């Protein structure tokens, strides 16, 4: 009994010691540590391309944007990360005090609305808010020109939404900015009165619209294109951008910033430069079905061109203030 016991203890200690040998703060100049709130399936190939092109070794931690933001805040100055690549401006704004100001030649590559006014982070790809609808139940002409009118009683029982989802909350932030608190509160209550189905996030909403469980849902535009890619063009759902513009037609960004404590800022800047290059922007356009933000890169032919979406042109900054939105959502009973 004694010897197997000792063997097990020795193995365990050895394993822990081996497991421990990878730690330590700050990467060397030829290395980058990236915290990515965007999934490996989407951006992994692109990061690999960067490594191949530059010889920089990248270590990427993939997790949800909020988890990574919380992790960065807990780590503080001890974070091993050089770059935070986030799904949404809210995540970047949450750690803004830990980020460093980016050089103008990076910020200047995207439209002014697509980066932070403090210059601490930059949008790398654009995503549109949209209304996804079931094509067997509805045509585009059945849909209101402004998202506000979904509070009309005719939409009772036909809507799906995800009040806990970050992108939805960004849209509510846009509503507060364009409509003001009172009208936004009225909209939230009006939709609730229409007994919408509540989902945890965008994907199940698009799935539910496709199956006919609901007729319309408030989502980001690219989820539909993934369903179309997996299920074929026959998938009975399409996107609609409210024609009167307003908060239902905003363009949001996924972006990135460099950590203040990063030991190799110039390599990190090279990474951001690469993400705004022709190659990377085309990757976003064609692989993740997002909108390229750098000048002169074509939009995927399957998407409505940005110029045809009546984007109210809110700056990324205006869309990052989640605090007030949270309060409003709590008051209306949508958040716990």
């Amino acid at each position, binding site marked *: 009994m004694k010897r197997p016991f000792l063997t*097990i203890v020795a193995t365990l200690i050895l394993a822990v010691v081996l497991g421990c040998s990878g*730690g330590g703060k700050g990467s060397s100049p030829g290395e980058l540590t990236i915290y990515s709130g965007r999934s490996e399936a989407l951006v992994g190939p692109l990061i690999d391309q960067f490594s191949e092109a530059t010889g920089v070794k990248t270590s990427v931690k993939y997790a949800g944007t909020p988890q990574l933001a919380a992790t960065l805040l807990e780590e503080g100055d001890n974070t091993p990360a050089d770059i935070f690549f986030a799904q949404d401006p809210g995540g970047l704004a949450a750690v803004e005090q830990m980020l460093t100001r980016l050089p103008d030649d990076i910020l200047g590559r995207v439209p002014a609305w697509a980066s932070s006014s403090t210059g601490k982070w930059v949008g790398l790809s654009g995503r549109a808010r949209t209304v996804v609808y079931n094509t067997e139940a509805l045509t585009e002409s059945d849909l209101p020109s402004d998202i506000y009118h979904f509070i009309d009683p005719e939409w009772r029982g036909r809507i799906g939404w995800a009040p806990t989802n970050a992108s939805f909350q960004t849209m509510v932030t846009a509503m507060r900015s364009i409509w003001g608190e009172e009208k936004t509160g009225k909209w939230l209550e009006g939709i609730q009165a229409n007994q919408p189905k509540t989902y945890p996030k965008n994907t199940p909403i698009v799935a539910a619209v496709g199956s006919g469980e609901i007729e319309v849902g408030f989502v980001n535009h690219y989820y539909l294109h993934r369903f179309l890619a997996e299920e074929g063009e026959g998938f009975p759902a399409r996107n609609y951008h409210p024609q009167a513009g307003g908060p239902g037609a905003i363009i949001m960004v996924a972006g990135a910033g460099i950590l203040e404590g990063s030991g190799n800022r110039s390599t990190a800047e090279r990474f951001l430069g690469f993400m705004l290059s022709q190659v990377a922007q085309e990757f976003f356009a064609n692989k993740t079905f997002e909108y390229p933000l750098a000048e002169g890169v074509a939009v995927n032919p399957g998407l409505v061109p940005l110029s045809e979406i009546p984007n109210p042109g809110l700056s990324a900054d205006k869309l990052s203030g989640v605090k007030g939105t949270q309060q409003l959502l709590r008051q209306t009973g949508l958040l716990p």
Partner: protein
Amino acid sequence: MTTSSRLILSRLFSNAGRHPPALVWLTGLAVGAALLLAPVYLLVRTAGAGTEVWDLLFRTRVLETLARTLLLVVSVTAGCIALAVPLSWLTVRTDLPWRKAWAVAIALPLVIPSYVAGFIVVVALGPKGMLQQLLESLFGLNRLPEIYGFPGAWLTLTFLSYPYVLLTVGGALSRMDPSLVESSRGLGQGSWATFRRVVLPLLRPAITSGGLLVALYTLSDFGAVSLLRYETFTWAIFVQYESGLDRTLGAALSLVLVAMALGILGMEFASRGRSRYYRSDPGVPRPPGLARLGRWRWPALGFCGVVLAISLVLPASVLVYWAIRGISAGEPLVLLWGPARNSLVAGGLAALAAVFAALPVAVLAVRYPGAFSTVLERITHIGFALPGIAVALALVFFGANYATPIYQTLGLLILAYVVLFVSPAVGALRTSFLQINPRLEEAARSLGRPPWRVLASITLPLAKPGIASAAALVFLLVMKELPATVVLGPVGFNTLATTIWAAASEAFFAQAAVPALLLILVSSIPLAFLMLRQRG
């Protein structure tokens, strides 16, 4: 050796009176301290919060969420016991045809992650799901009973978690002395009376320890309740972390969850009583005889079949369907050796570490009851009731700031797994220690063996089944663990669970189905080993 050092040594390893050997209680103390990291972190964060916390906590909404959570915990636990006790009895003590195959199959749902199961329940049983489509084409039925809310959450969690009770009760049934049942029958009691008056009371510790796991797990589950839209406390906590980007409010709500867990533990402790569960006479228990089912064989098979159809056949067929559809649509079959190996390594190391951490706790709880043991044992169960993200952030906080060399290493991740999953290991070990007659240990000691050698040569070998099930349980839980793996894993450390999550969160179902099937397959090996061992 000087007299004083000899004295110290003897204190360290001996058992003077009712005091545990110092080695045992010192390691117990270390384990307890590690497990307190999470609650301490939550207190630190909550203390840093503003008055907003009080506004958030003292609202009717919180009370409603509390009531909803308790309803789910009680009903899921009851449902799991109602399913698992007859299933265990059928597969351990009767001549049910193919009982060993059944035993393995009905335990398998344990390895399905709840975020996968929840999604499948929606796809299969949702308003426009597969079942409805089928019934519509056959009978023109266009409405099914509502699955969202309580019914769906209850169904998903019950059919996922009953194997916890299956494992504890199955173990106890297989070790139960058959002579007790025979005496009861010999004294003229019928089989139902024997079951009620002899078997059931003997199974009580196993049922409560399995039920406790189910209750705590239900408290901590996020995947199923979020997909089926039943707002529990853990759901509210995740919303704070996820959409509020607010660590302080999340921490405050997590503390309420800790309080609920302690309440449940208090009830479990109160129900334990002072009964003894070991054989009083020496000698080897005979292998139990098998009860004959006779004409009851068919209803019994039907019962097993229905449970299996809902808990395993349904999710597995949806996954196979997705995988085949994806592959036939030209989806590349990605090789998953890396994630599979990482899952195995993490699961194996965590299982070892958790068993070592659980041993002193279980020894103290069974052999040296008292205030210290009670507090220690309760602490070990807190982690299991907390959402993974809260425990993960606690270890980020301590790791990054106070233990930098091990931060973002496998070592810290294993520690997180121990904090999260030592509870089932303690439960399994405790149940099996309860069935060891302390007089065996006393006899060995009276023959001059030091206590730690008694532990190594008598107690541990006798507790082997308990050790095996503790290790297997932790292994299986680690295999499907998500939040802590994602946050604390070394950079680039992908497991099967993180691969599933990455694909499913981007709606790549075909890519999620293959690792999910692989996860079930890999986990089924230790599970099959465990279930077959319980059945001789």
